[in-house]
């Protein structure tokens, strides 16, 4: 086949998904592909789609591993509903992902992987490359394994190693399709394989061969170009929500002058925060991998008593286990940041899938009257800022804060404009001063109702705290009825008062109208995109996305009152909407819920919104 110059098609945004067997290196391929997109200035969001098993049997549906990239020439809000380009390395991955491909999507397959056994294992009756299965798509069939091996023949590389680089061959084809420069990837190989120079050569050759091969493929009728996005000037990086969360905590520790302590127990999808923080002992972070979640939170409480910015990270089942201890932090009025990277429940549920079903637990899941601050991040990138905010509120208001993120945010990545620490807001914990003659453990700042933090080792402040009800001001144990009422009220008022220190709730769109769409947490991108689409169509629709959940921003009621209907969209059965119903007795709440371990699709949202806009 002859090489020919292809027409270049400009696209605003494109969704690409790499899928294959667990061992096929799809995560790496996807990451390299998105790094290059980022480098040329596209905005992007990515999401890995792990199998629930570590290595499920080869060529099975259960063993499919995927990586999705959404890139564009303007701000990217989601990882994309449907896929424009699907790279499917074997029949199982094709079968599991075809439903996500747009009509007419380009599908690149490794024909070598479509042998009888693999086709059968995937559950196909016959070879989908031969029958009508893919008739609606632009199919690129390439014998990728064979070609990879061939490209390395001269080097005398053994077949196994050659086979393992077939993902780079596929990546080369994609680079051709997207008109990408190969140099950044060459540079990457040089960095990564410093100690194994033979691998640098192998990967370079394979990548280049894929690229060259693509030039000869007729099915590739055009190449796609995506212009750089207009982004705020600055230094950028790609970041996942879990890493951003970890870094936000480190930033808050530095800013507040309080050493970071993390007490955690691994749990999907929160483990990466623990693993990330374990790397930064050079920043003084003390990271304690506890024997269980209870020890994780209790060690953090001990460290908080001792003056640290104390944190614990977990997911739903772990938050359940920590609930008793969080009550202890509430009554001892100590700072504590609890990060819950939500996953599918109940119980062990769907550990590798994402949902928003821990909100009830975060708000209400403790014995007694036990209020805490609850905030939620909404993008991978702003996990950094909300982790920072959670720490700031906790330290300054001397009370536990639960930060809700979720598996999508945690594993997904977006671009992150790197802030300067000097520009981050100050954090001023209310430390008691040595030998302060007026120090009383439960004396409160009248404005914030916050008590002072007297750190062990400080002269002249020896005192005792604990889980029994405290006597107002002096902090000794008290069984007095009116004192109990007072302390219960103080603890609630202290949290409510946080509303004086957080921003008002913004509205995206007009402050009054037919329909207000309400969302919170990790659904921001999809809901925003759906609302935008209808706003562009001139519909009377606005969007309020909540980051502060307990307390709610002060103007919340005003925001809600501006609309004839309010629809609250959540990836649960209606937890935030019920919470709003508690607070605001309004008859016009509607809800849109999905509990499938999947994010919202923009279309299902716009359908619902249109329906509400049309109904009386």
């Amino acid at each position, binding site marked *: 086949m002859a090489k020919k110059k292809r027409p270049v098609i400009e696209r605003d945004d494109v969704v690409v998904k790499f899928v294959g067997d667990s061992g096929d290196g799809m995560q790496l391929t996807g990451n390299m592909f998105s790094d290059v997109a980022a480098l040329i200035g596209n905005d992007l969001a990515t999401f890995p789609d792990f199998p629930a098993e570590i290595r499920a049997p080869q060529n099975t549906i259960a063993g499919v591993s995927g990586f999705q990239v959404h890139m564009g020439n303007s701000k990217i809000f989601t990882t994309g509903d449907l896929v424009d380009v699907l790279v499917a390395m074997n029949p199982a991955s094709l079968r599991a992902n075809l439903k996500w491909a747009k009509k007419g999507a380009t599908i690149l397959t490794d024909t070598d992987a479509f042998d009888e056994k693999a086709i059968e294992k995937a559950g196909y009756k016959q070879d989908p490359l031969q029958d009508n299965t893919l008739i609606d798509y632009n199919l690129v069939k390439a014998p990728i394994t064979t070609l990879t091996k061939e490209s390395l023949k001269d080097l005398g590389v053994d077949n196994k190693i050659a086979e393992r680089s077939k993902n780079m061959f596929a990546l080369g084809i994609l680079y051709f399709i997207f008109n990408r420069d190969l140099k950044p990837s060459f540079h990457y190989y040089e960095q990564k394989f410093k100690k194994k120079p033979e691998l640098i050569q192998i990967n370079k050759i394979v990548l280049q061969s894929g690229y060259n091969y693509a030039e000869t493929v007729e099915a590739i009728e055009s190449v796609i170009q995506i212009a750089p996005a207009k982004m705020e000037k600055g230094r*950028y990086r790609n970041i996942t929500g879990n890493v951003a969360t970890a870094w936000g905590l480190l930033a808050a520790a530095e800013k507040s002058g309080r050493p970071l302590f993390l007490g955690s127990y691994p749990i999907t999808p929160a483990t990466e925060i623990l693993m990330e923080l374990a790397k930064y002992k050079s920043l003084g972070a003390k990271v304690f991998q506890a024997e269980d979640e209870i020890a994780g939170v209790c060690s953090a409480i001990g460290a908080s008593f*001792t003056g640290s910015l104390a944190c614990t990270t977990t997911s739903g089942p772990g938050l359940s286990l920590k609930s008793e201890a969080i009550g202890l932090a509430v009554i001892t009025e100590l700072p504590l940041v609890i990060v819950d990277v939500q996953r599918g429940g109940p119980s062990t549920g769907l550990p590798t899938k994402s949902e928003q079903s821990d909100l009830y637990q975060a708000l209400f899941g403790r014995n007694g009257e036990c209020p805490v601050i609850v905030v939620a991040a909404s993008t991978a990138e702003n996990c950094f800022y909300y982790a920072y905010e959670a720490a700031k509120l906790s330290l300054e208001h001397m009370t536990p804060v639960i930060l809700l993120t979720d598996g999508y945010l945690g594993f997904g990545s977006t671009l992150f404009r790197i802030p300067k620490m000097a520009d981050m807001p100050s954090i001023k914990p209310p430390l008691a001063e040595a030998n302060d003659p007026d120090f009383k453990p439960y004396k409160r700042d009248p404005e914030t109702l916050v008590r002072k933090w007297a750190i062990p080792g400080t002269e002249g402040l020896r005192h005792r705290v604990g889980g029994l009800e405290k006597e107002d001001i002096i902090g000794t144990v008290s069984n007095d009825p009116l004192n109990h009422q007072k302390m219960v009220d103080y603890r609630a008022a202290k949290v409510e008062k946080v509303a004086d220190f957080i921003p008002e709730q913004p509205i995206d769109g007009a402050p009054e109208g037919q329909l207000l769409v309400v969302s919170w947490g990790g659904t921001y991108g999809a809901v925003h995109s759906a609302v935008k689409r209808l706003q562009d169509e001139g519909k009377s629709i606005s969007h309020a996305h909540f980051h502060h959940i307990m307390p709610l921003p002060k103007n919340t009621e005003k925001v809600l009152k501006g609309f004839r209907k309010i629809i609250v969209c959540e990836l649960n059965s209606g937890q935030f909407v019920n919470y709003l119903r508690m607070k605001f007795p309004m008859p016009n709440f509607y809800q849109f819920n999905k509990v499938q371990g999947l994010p919202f699709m923009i279309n299902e949202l716009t359908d619902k919104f249109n329906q509400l806009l049309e109904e009386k």
Partner: protein
Amino acid sequence: MDYVNMTVERSNVQLSKADFESDQMVKWCPGCGAHAILAAVERVFPKIGYRKENFCMVSGIGCSSRFPYYVNTYGFHGIHGRAAAISTGVKIANPRLSVWMATGDGDSLAIGGNHFIHIIRRNVDINILLFNNQIYGLTKGQYSPTTPMGKITKTSPQGTIEHPFTVGELVMGAQGTFFARVPDNNINLMTEAMFEAARHDGTSIIEIMQNCIIFADKAHNDITGKEVKDETMLVVKNGEPMIFGKNRDKGIILRDTHLEVAEIGKNGVTLDDILVHDQYNQDPGIQLMLAKLAPPHFPMVFGVIRSAMYPTYDDLVEEQIKYAKETSEIRNVDDLLNSGDTWEI
């Protein structure tokens, strides 16, 4: 006094009992063994020589766990079973504190069992006063993991059917580096053990045979009672032969693979045959056998049974941090944010 753990900040002035007395009313039952333990702590803390602000007392829940209110130190009264986890956080956060934990047989061996074995395994430098009264006191008399089998309690009307833990065995099974056993009716033994625990760098367990006068009165009397104790208690001292008995004529010897009681002067046994106590022995073999001994065939062993050197978790944390600070290029969060792949737009 002699060497104490050097991590903790020392006091410039000589402290006294009064420095550690709290203004809170002590609310244990009259006659409870806990009073004596409090007296011992108030006697030993000033001797240890640390700054008084550097003592931190942590507890769980139980009668024993009210302890922090009664000592004038920084104190934290936690939740049931979690004192070891809380203490671990305190000590890691600030290794210059001398952390003491007051806990019960229910608090540390029932609900808190997991944190107990893990703090021991990690060898976090905490001193644990385990009030073993063989009962749940605060909840009014249910059996605990140390209640002897067959004992009738509020939850075992036909007698318990649970084989109890032996604290020393559990400690050593969990790789413990320090174990002492003391009775609540001997303040000297208590203070000596506490002092040695303070000196020991690592998790120190002091099992105190404490009397709960209300719900398990005289539980330890068959062993620590005045009338019997000469024959039923063997107090070990490092470097000294393991001798006991009213006439100090009995001792412990090793025969084949097990310990035996021998009478000195009988069957050719001389003082030289008696085992000499080595609390510093790394190998816990004999120490474990000692911890297990109990009447009727043996005396129960008291004093510091094991005190072996082993790196502590908290020291290793500091070392890794120090090393990382010396070697890492990431010295502040700005460095971190700009590390790895970044680009300018």
